[in-house]
């Protein structure tokens, strides 16, 4: 069991560029969550999918952020026109129904 896989581990973008983050959940887990961690805000929920369907995106910024889960083996978080305030560690987690398991995160730096 490789755990939750996230790529890339680090990404540096220029202001205004697009960033796409990838997550591969643990095999057999039916729900995938995205969170963001910053020094100021701590760990905060963004969105989640169950059986590939979007269920709750209440934490997603309404503009520029989007997430998809095209198949059961991966989910993507896309940030368009990145801004310096988007700099954070983006964490993906998966669960079979109860305990959530986290990936190592993608550290996004927007210059």
């Amino acid at each position, binding site marked *: 069991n490789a755990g939750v896989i996230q790529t890339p581990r680090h990404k540096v973008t220029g202001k205004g560029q697009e960033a796409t983050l990838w997550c591969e959940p643990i095999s057999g887990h039916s729900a995938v969550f995205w969170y963001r961690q910053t020094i100021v805000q701590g760990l905060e929920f963004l969105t989640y999918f169950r059986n590939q369907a979007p269920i*709750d995106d209440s934490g997603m910024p309404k503009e520029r952020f989007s997430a998809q889960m095209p198949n059961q083996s991966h989910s993507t978080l896309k940030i368009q026109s990145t801004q310096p305030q988007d700099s954070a560690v983006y*964490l993906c987690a998966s669960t079979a129904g109860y305990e959530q398991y986290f990936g*190592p995160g993608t550290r996004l730096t927007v210059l």
Partner: protein
Amino acid sequence: GDQVEQSPSALSLHEGTGSALRCNFTTTMRAVQWFQQNSRGSLINLFYLASGTKENGRLKSTFNSKESYSTLHIRDAQLEDSGTYFCAAEKASSSFSKLVFGQGTSLSVVP
């Protein structure tokens, strides 16, 4: 909104001693997870509790949903226990729900 109040924010322990971390919830939570975030930033699962008490080695955790709190006890602290500890709780009654995180406790174990 729903909040998780975690204390203390920072803690220093000498090797071999122990202490307790606490999370208070502003609303009824269904379950709680405790994590250790290591120096590489990875969130390591420590406990998942829907009620009662669990113990694993030098760690013990309790969740009291009626009184809206959870604790994590560390005994015989070792240098490798250093890191940031987070509690996170689920509100919804369904099996799948976003986690609401506390602000974390930065633990430093010193010789």
